[in-house]
């Protein structure tokens, strides 16, 4: 315990320097902004701002990018409650009861419960990271190349097992991502693979380029074809602070949401979306009168909001301790670390304790800023909601183009992003989720490197993956996961957990 406190002390020392606190503030402010605005998500925003962080010291850059992420999961709820449109996917379920509360004139209460519940969840999740990350990182230091390879397989499979949609398509998307990740110079032989004579491809394709194409551009095309229908409750938002009955009603849901969200966030593929969906389903099951749900039940706002914020934060645990991304945003964070010369993995904690603990402490600071930012500034966010998409999307497009170009001052990246925009659009149309592709893309080179080292050490014997206990355990867990998901009973449950989305 004393060690945790001294580590947190070190972390707060880093997070509370004027510069870092300022970038944390900019991060959560931008995050809330894009969270509030439907049609642009954290993936596109973080990749857009990646080049802008080149000039910053690594710790400030990562603090800001992290702030964007949890700020977005926070801001998304405002849109969900007031417009019945999820600002982010993670706030889809908040729409159901939050919007009903707004229609009954309780918009302020819903927003207040969401903000305070999220803050509580964020605080708990920060403590959890501080407690669990060090032992996990220490354990991960024992991993050899074979163990790492198996861990990546487990991470990738687990990521798609928990996501919705067709499992086999998602695995195919991972493999495709791994392949795209291999484009560029092979570090061992110096051969420029799949560059087709284009000098711009020798260094490979940037993660920002792919992310902006598949998540930014394709999203704009999809929004344009769908058109927009909005009804904003902007008139009277009063009584943000919940009264005693509200607090009593939402205490348990917030606690349960925090617990569930924290747990699901740690799992690869978990993250805020799964957290909020599961928390909503759980509350509905626990409720004495489930028919209240969908008609403005305060539990239906409190639990998922706590869960998505807790999960947004605990999903940093696999990133910081193992160097394995659990969702596309974490994949981008790995990209950002590599750009800033930090090798992601368990050694970060010992090699760069200021960065590690500074980032963790900054999350709590950021959460505090979010409460301060959101409750009084709600009026400003509401004004933003009246901004029409026809003005918004050209702006997003321009920011994305400038962002893509600035990654390496190459117009080739702009064309590639346009290409990936089309590819991403086609994938979504064919119901192939692009998120697993991004995870595979980041892990491709790391997986090849670990496979190569593992087989070099074993003189080409593939049995090494089954004789090392850690590796074998990880592979068995992977196999069990696949069996469980393929079994009919669970696949029905899995469909059930995501059924709210179809509503």
């Amino acid at each position, binding site marked *: 315990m004393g060690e945790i406190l001294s580590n947190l002390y070190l972390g707060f020392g880093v997070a509370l320097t004027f510069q870092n606190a300022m970038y944390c503030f900019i991060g959560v402010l931008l995050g809330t902004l894009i969270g509030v605005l439907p049609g642009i998500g954290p993936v596109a925003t973080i990749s857009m701002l990646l080049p802008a962080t080149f000039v910053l010291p690594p710790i400030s850059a990562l603090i800001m990018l992290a702030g964007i992420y949890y700020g977005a999961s926070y801001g998304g709820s405002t849109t969900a409650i007031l417009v019945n449109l999820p600002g982010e996917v993670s706030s889809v379920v908040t729409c159901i009861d939050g919007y009903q509360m707004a229609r009954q004139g309780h918009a302020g209460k819903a927003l207040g419960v969401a903000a305070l519940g999220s803050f509580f969840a964020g605080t708990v999740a920060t403590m959890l990271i501080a407690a669990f990350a060090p032992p996990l990182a220490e354990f991960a230091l024992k991993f050899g190349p074979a163990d790492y390879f198996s861990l990546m397989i487990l991470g990738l499979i687990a990521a798609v097992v928990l996501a919705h949609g067709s499992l*086999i398509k998602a695995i195919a998307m991972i493999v495709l991502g791994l392949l795209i990740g291999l484009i560029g110079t092979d570090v061992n032989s110096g051969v420029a*693979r799949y560059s087709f004579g284009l000098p711009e491809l020798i260094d490979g394709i940037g993660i920002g380029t792919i992310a902006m194409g598949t998540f930014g551009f394709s999203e704009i095309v999809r929004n344009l074809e769908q058109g927009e229908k909005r009804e904003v409750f902007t008139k009277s938002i009063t009584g943000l602070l919940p009264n005693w009955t509200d607090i009593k009603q939402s205490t348990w849901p917030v606690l349960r949401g925090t617990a569930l969200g924290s747990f699901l966030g740690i799992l690869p593929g978990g993250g805020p979306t799964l957290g909020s969906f599961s928390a909503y389903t759980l509350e509905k099951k626990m409720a004495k009168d489930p028919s209240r749900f969908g008609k403005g039940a305060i539990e239906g706002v409190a639990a998922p909001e706590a869960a998505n914020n807790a999960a947004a934060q605990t999903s940093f645990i696999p990133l910081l301790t193992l160097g394995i991304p659990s969702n596309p945003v974490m994949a981008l964070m790995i990209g950002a670390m590599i750009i800033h010369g930090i090798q992601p993995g368990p050694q970060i904690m010992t090699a760069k304790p200021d960065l590690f603990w500074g980032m963790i402490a900054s999350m709590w600071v950021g959460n505090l800023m979010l409460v301060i930012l959101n409750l009084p500034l709600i009026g400003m966010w509401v004004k933003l909601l009246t901004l029409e998409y026809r*003005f918004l*999307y*050209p702006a997003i*497009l321009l920011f994305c183009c400038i962002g893509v*170009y600035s990654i390496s001052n190459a*117009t080739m990246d702009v064309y590639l992003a346009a290409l990936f925009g089309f590819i991403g659009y086609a994938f979504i149309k064919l119901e192939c989720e692009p998120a697993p592709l991004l995870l595979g893309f980041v892990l491709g080179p790391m997986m090849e490197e670990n496979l*190569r080292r593992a087989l070099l050490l074993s*003189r080409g014997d593939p049995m090494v993956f089954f004789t090392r206990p850690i590796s074998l355990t990880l592979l068995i867990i992977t196999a069990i996961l696949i069996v469980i998901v393929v079994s009919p009973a669970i696949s029905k449950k899995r469909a059930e957990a995501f059924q709210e989305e179809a509503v």
Partner: protein
Amino acid sequence: MKVGHPKDFWSGIMFIVIGVLFAVVAKGIKFGDSVLVAGYAMGTPARMGPAFFPFWLGLILILFGVIIAVNGYRTKGGPDSAFPHFHWRAIAYVLGSVIIFGLILKPVGMLLAGIVLVIVSSIGNPEKSPMKTTVILAVGLVVFCALVFVWGLKLPIPLCPDVEAIQSSIGFCRG
């Protein structure tokens, strides 16, 4: 017999095609002495060459593609399973404006390229807005971007037209 689930079937075909591409480029194609595609060195498992990992991943992708395509052919899907309709108009204007931006950014600078991007992409919106509003929006956005990205964050983006480059690319100006 008709394809039961066209969406899945064509996804599978897409994975097969991509898998074949990656595997073939890695391994290379040789007919006797003539080399069609050079390929990369395969190596042995103990000393993997650059072709090893992508070649096997390509094969795995083909395998998944076949499973998805066969399943898609056999299973009967609902009304959602039809091959999707692509909105080419939105695609053309949004992605087209991005490509134009890339083409003209270096010669004419971000201020002009940005204005073109905003105007062209706005035409792609089914809900029309008046040209005057779009132009005001465009000018406002490029000024904002110039202030934030170029002057504020010091990103090396050309702002103004590169007159010499334009002149040398058009023979007319040289007489």
